């Protein structure tokens, strides 16, 4: 027995975290960006395009710093982030909850699917007039709008994830004595996590779009509001500065999401 055992069984445990090999193309992107910015800077300086039309990158950075230092942009940023995350969390939590219900109960699915089919395709930005009538133009309106936008992608992905759960895993859990609630908690929901995360990723993007767009239409504070204002008074430097800030926020959030993805899906890394 031991002879065969040594062949099959006792490979030394592989280290859990292999040192990842540094990809030697990692600096291509940053280098390309740097060259692009330098060309922009030089192009504007040489051609004499007016600042009103296209400011230089260095001027945009100065505008951004000035906005933070003297015009209270930190408050607008905090406000916008709160609205984005408030809507995202509210909509996602409802989406996951309803998704688990709809994915596990055929009756609930049969009853509610028609509502999902009816509301999902409506562009959520078109709900602004109605929501303003009902909720005014405050934070509640913005958060509800973003929540509606986040709800459906999370809901639909959760339903798919829950339905795709391997029936063999459920049988195994039942064999080990799992109750219905335990099967849900320990098997069905964890199995749906990759799909739920895909939905959350979509939802966060949607929340950013909806909040900034609605702020441009209705709000007095917030990045969207400031962006709209800067455009109206032809402060092109401020417009670019706020766009730069939104881009940075997007980059950070995407990065955070992929770290969360990798952490939650670490069992898939072999």
């Amino acid at each position: 027995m031991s002879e065969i055992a040594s062949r099959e069984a006792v490979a030394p445990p592989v280290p859990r975290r292999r040192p990842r090999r540094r990809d030697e193309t990692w600096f291509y992107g940053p280098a390309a960006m740097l060259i692009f910015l330098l060309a922009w800077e030089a192009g504007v300086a040489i051609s004499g395009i007016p600042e009103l039309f296209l400011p230089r990158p260095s001027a945009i950075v100065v505008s951004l710093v000035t906005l933070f230092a003297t015009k209270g942009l930190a408050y607008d940023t905090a406000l916008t982030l709160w609205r984005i995350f408030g809507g995202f969390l509210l909509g996602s939590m409802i989406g996951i909850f309803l998704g688990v219900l709809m994915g596990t109960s055929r009756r609930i699915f049969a009853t509610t699917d028609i509502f999902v089919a009816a509301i999902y395709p409506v562009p959520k930005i078109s709900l602004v007039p109605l929501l303003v009538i009902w909720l005014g133009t405050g934070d509640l309106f913005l958060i509800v709008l973003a929540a509606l936008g986040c709800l459906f992608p999370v809901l639909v992905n959760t339903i798919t994830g829950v339905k795709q759960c391997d029936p063999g895993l459920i049988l195994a859990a039942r064999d080990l004595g799992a109750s219905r609630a335990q099967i849900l908690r320990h098997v069905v929901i964890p199995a749906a996590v990759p799909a739920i995360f895909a939905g959350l990723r979509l939802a966060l993007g949607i929340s950013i779009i909806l909040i900034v767009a609605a702020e441009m239409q209705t709000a007095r504070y917030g990045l969207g509001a400031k962006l709209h204002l800067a455009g109206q008074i032809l402060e092109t430097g401020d417009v670019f500065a706020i766009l730069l800030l939104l881009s940075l926020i997007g980059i950070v959030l995407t990065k955070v999401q992929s770290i969360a993805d990798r952490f939650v899906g670490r069992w898939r890394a072999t």
Partner: protein
Amino acid sequence: MPAPFAAIAVTRLSHTFESRSGATTLALSDVSFEFPAGRVTSIVGPSGCGKSTLLLILRGLLAASEGEVRFLYGAERQPGPPPRMATVWQSFNLLPWRSVLDNVAFGLELGGMGRAEREARAQDAIRAVELGGFEKHFPGQLSGGMRQRVGLARGLVMQPEILFLDEPFGALDAQTRLYLQEQLSALVERSGRTVVLVTHSIEEAIFLGDLVMVMTARPGRVAATLEVGLPRPRGLDAQKTPRFGQLFEEIYGLLRDEVRKAMLERI
């Protein structure tokens, strides 16, 4: 002291699957059988004859359309509640997001056992299947043979009085399979547990079994029951004995026509 578990008695069991579209499949037909305690009963039959269905019904995970399963206790063979049971699956059915340790401890966790105790017990089970050192690994990082040993440990840690195995080595390569058969054989001999083993390998059915139940093509019925009668402990050389060859031929003779039937039906 409660009377010891004596047998699983199956009477006139039939099962029909009904699909959503209304099509029905008669998977089992009128199966009566007794699985004696403390022995290994192998079930062989052509694929699709209802072996897995029978196992699920015995385990209580599927309600049979007709017939009954009773668990008998003591010399008087009094029916009683089901004893502790555990199942090992062909496709392993490990939770891929749980480590080996957490997979093996899963059943104990579901039963509400505290972390320290369940992990200690899981450790013992993991060592018993020679997987010490792999506790922190995820199933996706293990070979098929190692995954099935996790499956075995996950069942054994529940200290089942009856162990069900549904083609446990069917997904493994020949050498791994041979090795695990030996390991399982040794384990069964040590524990004296009641085992019900479904397999499509005649050799495996004989090598591991005390009894072999041969099933017909679908709808599955009992074609014959054979006493293996080979001495234990059995080593690989058991397969070279005349008794083994004789059993093999007998079972193959019973199965050949059934396999042909099952094959033709699928065309």
